[in-house]
Structures are given as structure tokens and as C-alpha cells.
């Protein structure tokens, strides 16, 4: 494995800690803790940066200026103020709520959203949990995100929340299938489920977005649907069902939903980067992780662009589109990939 800046840093740290403690297990453990802390840092930073970015991008699309008073000319402290405010708001629990489920929901939503970050190769060798069935595990974990929405929607004892909960289940389950099928072609091409192998397979500039353009489009649409963003933001369709499952949540609990939403957004962008855009690969003048984040941020911008341009689809449209268009197309993509691979004698 070639070394990169991040993995080199990790190696050096491991050596230092080993030098101090002298126990190999402890140094591994310490490194894991540092890694987890870093990832959580990235997630919460992502939420802060993306709320700011979203407001600026939105303002840009809507011929406005966006925040520019709080914290200097560019309003850089705006998300900090929002965060602090949400932390100190009153915590209201509705009277008729199912208290345990209600309180668990935001936390449970955040866990899978954060857990999947363990599998991402931010740079060559810089993976927290380097497992050889990475893709499989990743989707197994992120699939759990459906339940907390339903829990929150059910437990709130509010009809809007309930409708939102129903919507989220039908929508996320429908789009899980095309999402996975769209990646099958890539797995066939690389022959590995390890994410780093997938990235390495794209070395030499032949990114999978060029080999699998159809899969990329399907993946992008499904990923937007999975993250519940416009045009598929039926879950919290503001003008229809107020805030969907989150209608009754206030203050920090709601902020956790918010955090999970932006963590999922970054996840979607990172997945697109890893699978289709060559991950951390790029010309040498920038380190690998810089390329990685650059591509991810570009993807995030693209998804935000969708949000501020498209209207919202309707619930029956989104489902029929998922099952009748996305799924057959993604299976066709798998089939075509197989045929081409056979013809080229790659199997």
C-alpha cells in the first residue's frame, strides 16, 4: 500500500504512542479514539459549514446576499450562533408522546449516519475500519436510518409526523434498491467490496463515472432521495406536512436531526466521490485527502443546486419513479456491464 499524508501521520502517531506506553494494543486503541474524535469533528463541522454554505448558495441562487452581518463581512459566525441558540432552547416534550421512542429517535438517527464514516477511505490507507466487505456493511448500517424516522413520527402523536413517518419508510426503502443495484456494476468491475480497492481501481484517470455513466445518474438520484432532499424532500415537505417526523421536536433534539441530515448529505457526496469520481486520486500537487474533500464538496454543491432549483415531487410519483424507472434501469446497467465484460473477456 502506498503511503499518503494521512496514513503517514497515523503511522508516526502510532510509533510515538508505542514509544510512550510500550503496549501495542493501547497504541491501536488510542489511534482509534483519535480517529473517531476526528470523524465526529468532521461531521459536526460539516453540519456547521453546510448550513452556512446552504444559506449562501441559496442566497446566490435567489439573487440575494445571504448572511453577512454576524461575524465579519461574510457572516461566518452565523451557524455558530444558530448552534448555540439551539443548544439553549427549551426542551419541550409533547404530552401524548411515547416518551422512550420519542427521545431515542434523534439519537438513533445520528448513530448510523455517523457510523458509516468509519468505512470511508479519506486518503490512501486512511480508513478507520478497513473491512473487506465495506460496501456491504455500509449499506447495511445506513439502511437502519429508516427506523428512527418512523419512531419519531409515530411517537410524536401528531398526524403530520405520522404521515411523514409513513412517507419516509416507503421512500427510503424504494430507493435503497436502485442505489445498491447501481453500484453492482462497479463491484463487478473491481471484484472487491473493499472501498479502497474500488478507489484504486480508478487509478489512471479512468473514473467509473466515465465507465458507468448510467449508474452514476441513478446513484445520484437515489442518493438525493435517500438523504430526503429536494426534489425528494417529501418527508419534511414544508408546505404540506410542516416538518414531517420532526414537527414536535425542538431545540437540541431537532438539531440532532439536522446534524444527521447534513451528515447524510456528506455521506452521499463522499460515496459518489469514492465510487465514481476516483476518491482521493488526483494530480500530485494536492494531497489525497484534499482531492477527496474537494470532490465531495463539489458533489454537495450539486445537490444543493438541485434543492434550490427543483420543486418537490409527489409521493406517488416518487414511488413509481423509483420502482418503475430507477430499478429496471439499474438492473439493465448490471446486465450491460456483464455483457460487456464477457465480450471483452474480463470474466
Amino acid at each position, binding site marked *: 500500500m502506498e503511503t499518503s499524508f494521512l496514513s503517514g501521520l497515523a503511522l508516526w502517531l502510532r510509533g510515538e504512542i508505542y514509544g510512550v506506553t510500550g503496549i501495542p494494543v493501547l497504541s491501536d486503541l488510542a489511534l482509534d479514539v483519535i480517529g473517531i474524535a476526528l470523524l465526529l469533528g468532521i461531521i459536526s463541522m460539516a453540519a456547521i459549514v453546510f448550513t452556512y454554505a446552504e444559506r449562501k448558495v441559496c442566497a446566490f441562487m435567489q439573487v440575494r446576499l445571504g448572511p453577512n452581518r454576524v461575524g465579519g463581512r461574510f457572516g461566518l459566525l452565523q451557524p455558530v450562533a444558530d448552534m448555540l441558540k439551539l443548544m439553549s432552547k427549551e426542551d419541550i416534550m409533547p404530552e401524548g408522546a411515547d416518551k422512550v421512542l420519542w427521545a431515542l429517535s434523534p439519537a438513533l438517527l445520528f448513530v448510523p449516519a455517523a457510523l458509516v464514516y468509519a468505512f470511508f477511505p479519506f486518503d490512501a490507507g486512511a480508513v478507520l475500519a478497513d473491512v473487506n466487505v465495506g460496501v456491504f456493511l455500509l449499506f447495511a448500517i445506513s439502511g437502519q436510518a429508516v427506523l428512527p424516522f418512523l419512531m419519531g413520527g409515530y411517537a410524536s402523536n401528531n398526524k403530520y409526523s405520522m404521515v411523514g413517518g409513513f412517507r419516509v419508510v416507503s421512500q427510503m426503502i424504494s430507493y435503497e434498491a436502485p442505489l445498491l443495484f447501481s453500484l453492482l456494476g462497479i463491484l463487478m468491475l473491481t471484484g472487491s467490496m473493499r472501498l479502497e480497492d474500488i478507489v484504486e481501481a480508478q487509478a489512471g484517470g479512468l473514473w467509473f463515472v466515465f465507465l458507468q455513466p448510467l449508474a452514476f445518474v441513478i446513484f445520484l438520484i437515489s442518493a438525493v432521495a435517500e438523504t430526503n432532499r429536494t426534489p425528494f424532500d417529501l418527508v419534511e415537505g*414544508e408546505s*404540506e406536512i410542516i416538518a414531517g417526523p420532526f414537527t414536535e421536536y425542538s431545540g437540541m433534539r431537532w438539531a440532532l436531526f439536522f446534524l444527521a441530515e447534513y451528515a447524510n448529505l456528506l455521506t452521499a457526496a463522499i460515496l459518489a466521490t469514492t465510487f465514481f469520481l476516483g476518491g482521493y486520486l488526483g494530480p500530485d500537487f494536492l494531497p489525497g485527502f484534499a482531492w477527496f474533500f474537494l470532490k465531495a464538496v463539489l458533489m454537495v454543491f450539486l445537490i444543493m443546486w438541485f434543492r434550490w*432549483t427543483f*420543486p418537490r415531487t*409527489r409521493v406517488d410519483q416518487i414511488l413509481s419513479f423509483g420502482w418503475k424507472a430507477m430499478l429496471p434501469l439499474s438492473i439493465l446497467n448490471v446486465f450491460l456491464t456483464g455483457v460487456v465484460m464477457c465480450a471483452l473477456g474480463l470474466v
Partner: protein
Amino acid sequence: MKAAAPAKRTETYLLNMGPQHPSTHGVLQVKLTLDGERILKAEPVLGYLHRGIEKLMESRTYVQCLPYTDRLDYISSMNNNFGFAMAVEELANIEVPRRAEFIRVIMAELNRINSHLIGIGTLANDLGASTGMLYCFRDREYILDIFNEVCGARQTFHYIRIGGVSGDFTDKARSLTEAFLERVPKFLAEYDQLLTGNEIFTRRIVGISPMTAQEALDLNMTGPNLRATGVARDLRKLDGYSVYGELDFAIPVGEHGDNWDRYQVKLKEIAESAKIIRQCLDKLPEGDIMAKVPKVLKPPKGEVYSRSEGTRGELGFYIVSDGTTKPYRVHIRRPSFVNMQGLDLMCRGMLIGDSVSAYSSIDPIMGEVDC
């Protein structure tokens, strides 16, 4: 698209939308009876903004009544002023100077564009495209600039008075209007790009909440909601009141009476209104802007029903005079109020997501509905 009745027996439930709901345009409350997401019945509950304007007018003089009309349908105040002023003029036999008539038509048509822009913007916003709304509001500001120039207000103008208009149509207002007219085709093209040409937007409104011409006529509906069903009834043409008889314009009609047609009719009416304004600017004569109206206005005994084409349909003022300075009874036929009867028909068999587009395509203004 109406689905067949579900084979399994399911329980219906009641969803209460409003009076505070982001897409009910103010304080409309709608009780939706739902089967899953499908609407079985929609019952509008009105009155959350009932301010008793009709009663208040009975204790005001005719001149004092006029500002209340501003606050009826608060995004087409000019048209309301126009309607009330016409009613009182008919009652008191006041002849309005020609220049004032033209200025009135210019203002009423500008306000129609303004109101339709808000209608389109809120439709876009309710469908989730908030950028569309922001664009509509951006273009609306240029109309408000003109109003600001002629009367100094942005919303409740009180500009069209009994007997004429309160201030002259200045050269600056004229140049602003001309600049705005040049913008009209540009922003219409922009909406075509952003909304009309958008596949998702199209699919959300084509074929949704359809209504036949007969149904609309039975429900007494008027205005763009009626014209979308294919009935070319426009009081500006039919009655030819004020100077509309001398102007050349078309009545855009729809075909299926669905949300798409209502949206298209509004877009086309913007273009037609721009045409009317252009003609009025060309024909605008010199002269007085105010007729000789007695300081104390005492119309003769009698009653009058005078109607005009408001932005939402037939806006009628029924005034009974007992010969004193105050009207004995004023009744306002509010188009939004009558059009609200169509809501149940429009929502039936649709999904929750369609109900919001039905609200915004019917385009009620609660100040007018509740009066």
C-alpha cells in the same frame, strides 16, 4: 388521477390544516378527511380574518369607506378601490375625467400583474420551489416602485378615489412603467425556464384538480379559475366598463380546468395586461384627474350593484343609500369567497401534496374571503 377504491377496508382520519399552516395563505383552515394520503373530503373553515368590514362601512362616510377596500384583497388594492369608486360614482352620478379613467386602468392592470405574480410565486413555493417565489417577488418590486411613485404606498394604496385618482401619473411614473413593460417578456421567459419547462413542476400540476366548465359555472366561480375551464368570461370584455371597451386585448382560456391551466391562464394574463398598459400609455390624454365631487358626498336614495373584474374574478359592490353621507348597507361580492366553494371538488381524490397546489391555484386571499 383518481384511484379506484381500495379493496381493503381502511380507516379514514381527519387532518386539520391551518389556520396556521405554511401553505394556506394566511388563516385558511381546511379539514381534510383522508384515507392514507388520499383526500376524501376537504372542508374549508373560514372566518379567522373576519373583521366585519361591511358593518364598519355602515358607520363611515363614503370617502372613509374607501380605505377599507384596500384591506379586502390586500394584494390587489387598486382593483378594489376601482370597484368601490365605480359603484359610488354610479350611485351619485359622477362623471370621471378621461385621463383619470386611463390612469385607473393602468393601475388596475399593473396590480393584476402584481397579484398574479404572487399567485404564481406561492404556487411555486407550495410545490417546494422557493426560488420561483423569490423571482416572482423580485419582479413584483418593480411594480411597487411605480405605485410608490404615484401614491407613496407599497400595499394599501388608496389611490383611486371617488371621482378620479388622487395624484397625477407623473413622467417618472411613466418611465418606470415603460421600463417595467420591457421587463415583462424577459421575466416571463425566465419563469418558462425555471418553472414551466421543469418536468417535475409540470408533472405536479398537469391534470391535477381538474374541473369542467359546467362545474365551475354551477359553483358561480369567476376569474382565472373559471377561464381555466375554457369559459371566456371576462367582465372587462363583457361589460366593457371604464375604457376597457376601447382597448384591444385577448381573454386567455384554458382547456381542462386543472392546475396547469390555471397557472397558464395567469401567465398569459400577465402578458395581456402588459398589452393593455402599453395601449393606455399610448392613448393617455391630457386633462383633469379628478371630477368635481362635493365635499360632503350625499348620493340620492337608491341602491346599486356595480361589478368589475378583480384579479380573482367578479368583484361586486352592492350599496344601498338612504340619502345620507353614510351608506345604509354595503355588501361586497368577494370572488375568492365564492371560489372557495370549489375547493372540495378540486381536492377530492387528490393526495395531500396536491391539496396545497389546489389552494394556491385557487389563489384565495383570506382578507377577501373573510371580509
